[in-house]
C-alpha cells in the first residue's frame, strides 16, 4: 500500500443503509425506497448522506450532507435532511400557520397543539418543509441552524403571504 493511500484513508466509515432507513421509517414513516440511491457514512457524531457507495480517494472535508446527529440519546435529523426527504413523511409532521412559521424561522419556541409523539418532528409551512423541530410536552422548539434563522424582514415576508390577509 502506498503512503498516499494510507494518508487519504477516510475518516468516514460506511453504515448499513437499511439501519438508517429503518430509523427514518419508524419515526417519520418515510419509505426506505427513498434512500435506495443514498449511501450513509459516519464520522464522529454525524451521519452523512452521500450519492456513492464509495468515498473517493481524496482528503475529504465533507461527503454529501450531514443527515443525522448522533450526539444525544435519540438521533436527530438535520434540517437539511428533512428539507430533502421530509416531504415523504407520513407521521410526526407539523404544518404551521403563518404566525407560527414566523416564530419557527426566527428560531423561537412556542406552545402548539399537534398530534405527534414527543421528539423530533418534520416542520412544514404551506406544504413545504422548513426543517427540524423538537416537540416536547406541547411545546415546539425550532432546530434551525442559527445562521439560517430569519428575523424581522423575513418574518414580514412570511406574514404577508396571503394566509393571514
Amino acid at each position, binding site marked *: 500500500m502506498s503512503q*498516499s493511500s494510507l494518508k487519504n484513508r477516510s475518516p468516514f466509515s460506511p453504515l448499513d443503509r437499511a439501519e438508517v432507513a429503518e430509523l427514518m421509517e419508524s419515526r417519520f414513516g418515510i419509505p426506505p425506497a427513498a434512500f435506495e*440511491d*443514498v449511501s450513509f457514512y459516519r464520522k464522529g457524531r454525524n451521519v452523512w*448522506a*452521500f*450519492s*456513492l457507495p464509495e*468515498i*473517493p*480517494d*481524496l*482528503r*475529504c*472535508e*465533507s*461527503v*454529501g*450532507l*450531514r443527515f443525522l446527529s448522533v450526539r444525544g440519546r435519540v438521533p436527530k435529523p*438535520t434540517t*437539511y435532511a428533512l*428539507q*430533502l426527504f421530509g416531504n415523504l413523511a407520513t407521521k410526526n409532521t407539523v404544518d404551521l400557520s403563518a404566525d407560527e*412559521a414566523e416564530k419557527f*424561522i426566527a428560531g423561537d419556541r412556542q406552545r402548539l397543539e399537534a398530534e405527534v409523539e414527543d421528539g423530533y418532528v418534520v416542520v412544514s*409551512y*404551506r406544504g*413545504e*418543509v*422548513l*426543517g427540524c423541530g423538537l416537540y416536547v410536552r406541547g411545546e415546539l422548539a425550532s432546530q*434551525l441552524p442559527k*445562521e*439560517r434563522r*430569519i428575523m424581522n*424582514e*423575513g418574518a414580514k*415576508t*412570511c406574514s*404577508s*403571504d*396571503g394566509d393571514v390577509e
Partner: protein
Amino acid sequence: MEGLERYRDIVPDFELFVESMARPLPVTARINTLKTDRNRLLSRLTESKVSFRPFSWYDLGLELDVEKPGNLIENLMGHIHVQEEISMVSPIVLDPKPKERVLDMCAAPGSKTTQIASMMENRGLLVANDPANTRVASLRSNCERAGAINVVVTRYDGRRFPSTKFDRVLVDAPCTGQGMARKDITVLDRWSLKRSLGLQRLQRALLKRATDLVKPGGVIVYSTCTFAPEENEAVVSWVAERVPQVSLEKVSVEGLESSPGLTEWDGSRFGDEMEKCARYYPHKNDAGGFFVAKLIKE
C-alpha cells in the same frame, strides 16, 4: 474607472459600457431543482406576493423584486439560490450529466457548485475544491442548504490537485473581478496590471493542471469575472499552446449577447482560435461581466 479606459478599443459601445458600471446589479436567483421545480416555486412566490421576472435565456433564472433575497423563506428552504445572472453561464457551458465525475476546482462560495449538483440530479460525483479555509465554511453551508448529496468538499491547492480522472472540470479562476464592479465599484480602483499578471501565473497553472485531470474526450471550462485579457485569452492560449491534446470549442449561450474572445492584445498574438471564447459585457445583458472558454481534450 481608470482601469476601464484600456478597453476602449475592444468593448463595443464603450461609453454605454462605462455608464453601466454605475448601475447596481439586479437581484437574481436560481431555482434549485434538487428541492423544488419551476412551477411550484413560481406559484409560491406569486402567492407570497413577491414580484419576479424569469430570465429570457434560462428557465431556472429569476430577477427578484426584493431588497434582501436572503431573507426569503424560499431561500431558507433551499428552493432558490441567490446568484448573479451571468455566473450561471459557466455550469451551462460545462454541461455536466448525472452519474459523471466532475471537479469544480475553485468552488467557494458554491453558487456554481450547487448549480452543477442540480444539473447532475444529485448523482455521480462532484468534487468541490477550494484551498481557502475561510471560504470552505460558506461552500459547505451552501451545498447543504441546496440539498446536494453528490458533493465532496476538498481543500487542495488546485495547482497540485491529486491525480484523479474527471469527465468535466470547471476552473472558475480567482481574478481581479472587474466584471463585478456593479456589485462593488472598488474593484476598479484595486485593479492594476501587476495584479492581473500575478493572477495570470496562478490561472495558467490551475488550467494546466485541469488538462491533466480530465479524461480523454472530457471537457474543461475556464471562466473569470474580469475583462483583463491578461487573465483570459492570455491564459487559455498559453495552455492550449503547451497542451496539444486540447482544442477550443465555440462558447455560445442562446439568448445572451457576447463578443468573441480577442485574437491579440497589447502586442501579443493569441491566435484566431481564441475567437471561440465568449466575452460578456455588463451593458449588453444588464448583468455582470464574464469570460468563458471551453476546451475539449482529445
